[in-house]
């Protein structure tokens, strides 16, 4: 038994780190260090820099422009981004949509979308959730009715992260309301957000920032060649999309970054440092759990039920760290910026908004309660 990285893995880590140091715009880096969010232009510039190196699409196969990495390299790459910290390539594009287009898309769709998706010439957003379909995603009601060469789409999507930056949206829509099983009446559709009938309304989250949106679709005519997979087989595509990059959900490097900020803030405070140590101890073990799963993936790449453990514990620790940072700052964390949260320029000012909005991490991507039910059903056979 050996947990140490191989010499090749250590050299790869070094190579990734050197590249990020050399190529990441210092202004973007400064923002990330302070817990601020990069703007659209900064995210695009960074993704294009990664794409020029062939690294924007870590999980894509080589023949579609991916770097040909295995699960261990992918995890190292992401960890270096998180610890740097640097923006991740937009996950809607590269972790979610890209892999399912490669698997389920037509040749025409691949030719049309994969390149621009990797280079962030098209920014995608995820149009799954609806007011009546949250954890219970199969309750989606947005209707798509075939009419000649188009689908006519009408419905109400909610929680679209970064839709105000996005050019296109991938959606789950109902094409057969009469199907015996709810899941069997759904289709996976790509929608150009510039089409007539699309309205995007901002939702401001408790950090005061604009990250999520509602998207209203009012008889939007979507060309039928934007259907991915067969009509009424959208659930299959969606399940594949939601299971992508399962092992990278622990976000350990991000939590380490928050811990570094806590240590700067709490220097000399034994009580706070003891709390940080308690989080660090658990985080160290989660790192081992992730290595164990990666080790198993090298032998077989089926879905690992332990990935629910990574999500649950990873989120728990990240939330705990973000909370401890606020505690370390104390009441001074309440000081806001008159220009709004996006204008905050000091590292202390971002702690409270970031803590607040990080509560969402146990709600999206499979809420913690839902993860526990999955674990109980699958692993325990309860």
């Amino acid at each position, binding site marked *: *038994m*050996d*947990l*140490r*990285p*191989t010499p090749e*893995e250590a050299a790869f880590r070094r190579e990734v*780190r050197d590249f990020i*140091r050399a190529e990441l715009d210092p202004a973007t880096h400064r923002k990330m*260090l302070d817990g601020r969010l990069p703007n659209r232009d900064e995210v695009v510039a960074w993704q294009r820099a990664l794409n020029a190196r062939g690294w924007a699409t870590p999980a894509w196969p080589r023949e579609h422009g991916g770097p040909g990495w295995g699960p*261990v390299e992918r995890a190292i790459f992401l960890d270096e981004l998180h*610890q*740097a*910290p640097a923006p991740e390539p937009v996950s809607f594009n590269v972790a979610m949509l890209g892999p399912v287009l490669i698997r389920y898309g037509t040749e025409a769709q691949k030719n049309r979308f994969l390149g621009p998706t990797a280079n962030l010439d098209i920014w995608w957003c995820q149009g799954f959730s609806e007011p009546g379909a949250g954890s219970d995603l199969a309750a989606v009601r947005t209707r798509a009715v075939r009419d000649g060469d188009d689908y006519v789409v009408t419905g109400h999507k909610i929680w679209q992260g970064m839709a105000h930056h996005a050019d296109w949206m991938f959606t789950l829509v109902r094409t057969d309301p009469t199907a015996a099983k709810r899941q069997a009446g759904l289709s996976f559709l790509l929608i150009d957000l510039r089409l007539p009938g699309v309205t995007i309304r901002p939702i401001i989250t408790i950090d005061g920032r604009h990250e999520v949106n509602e998207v209203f679709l009012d008889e939007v005519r979507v060309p039928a060649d934007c259907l991915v997979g067969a009509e009424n087989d959208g659930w299959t595509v969606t399940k594949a999309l939601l299971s992508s990059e399962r092992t990278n959900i622990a976000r350990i490097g991000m939590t*380490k*970054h928050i*811990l*570094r900020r806590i*240590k*700067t803030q709490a*220097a000399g405070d*034994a009580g706070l*440092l*003891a709390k*940080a*140590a*308690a989080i*660090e*101890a*658990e*985080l*160290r*073990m*989660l*790192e*081992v*759990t992730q*290595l*164990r799963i*990666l*080790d*198993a993936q090298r032998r077989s790449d089926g879905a690992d039920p*332990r990935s*629910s*453990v990574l999500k*649950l*514990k990873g989120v728990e620790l990240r939330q705990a760290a973000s909370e401890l940072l606020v505690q370390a700052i104390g009441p001074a964390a309440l000081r806001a910026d008159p220009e709004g949260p996006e204008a905050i320029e000091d590292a202390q000012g971002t702690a409270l908004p970031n803590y607040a909005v990080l509560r969402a991490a146990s709600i999206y991507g499979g809420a913690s*309660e839902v*993860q*526990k*039910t999955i*674990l*109980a*059903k699958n*692993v*325990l*056979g*309860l």
Partner: protein
Amino acid sequence: MNLELDDDQRLLKEMVDRFAEDTGGLDSHRAAARTAAGWSENAWQGMADLGLTAVMVSEPAGGLGGGGAELMILGEAIGRHLLAVPYLDTAILCGTALSAAPAPLRERALGELLDGSRRYALVTGAISDDEGTLTGKAHGFFGCGTAEAFIVDTGHAFYLVDAGAPGLSRAARPLHGGGTAADVRLDGVRGEQIAAGDEAARLRLELRDRRVAFLAAEALGAAEGAFEATSDYLKTRVQFGKPLASNQALQHRAAEMLVEIEQLRSAAILAACSLEEPVADERERIMAAVSIVAVKTGRFVAQQAVQLHGGIGVTEEHAVGHWFLRLTAIGLLLDGVSATRTLAGLGGFVAAAPYWEAAA
């Protein structure tokens, strides 16, 4: 990274698991707890006969030279099957100490330890040492009331003393969960030196690390045992006309236990893989982190396992209560509070400096 066991380790695991399953279990654990020593002579002799007492003894000393993987195999099986044997206290701690002794002493004393014919226990204290004549008070836990020979850590050196030596007296007291602890008084007792100076300091750290790694593995085994019993119970116990397992509140509790057990397994693996970690501070950080997590997860699993069993969980007649007690004992021995202080005192794993500066 490679987390597979090699062929020899796989064979050892099969053998140890089978032995622990056949020999351990609730009834033999309860019977052993009622004896003076607190362990099953039958099981201990069985382990000696199979050569299992020698697994962690170095090869030059005549053992099998086992490392972290072997230690984990033994700890996990012993915890899982409530096997009542003094494996940690005698085979690992005393066996490791005696392996470091000069050849003649080592050959004689270690031989009697490995074949199960003599009972050893480790005691520590602030003991004055006048050229091998020891005076002061020491204490130790499991097995100290019935030991026939003591390994004494004086704080500066390690000595072997006979329990019947003139000038040695002990006050034994029973331990919760079986066995006896003892306060040992040494009044001008002659000891045979095992190690002193730098060698003693090195040995003390080796004992610390092996102890943490074994207890983490034993905690993992006990937590798995408690969890499996709980999961079976949830599926079979019927209340309000349906199995307990059909209640989502209890499903989620079981899922939470599972998450903590995965963390505990990672802790046991990390400790096992870090016994040879060359950087002393890093090894100390790891052992502290392992202790913190083993204590926390062990307590959670133990408490929830009892809770979900209802009344039967708090009886001495059901295994779950014994896993609870053992996890509680391990929690006290690993001392999460001081481990947290240690890890914080060493600066934890990440520094205040930004990543690129710290990792440069």
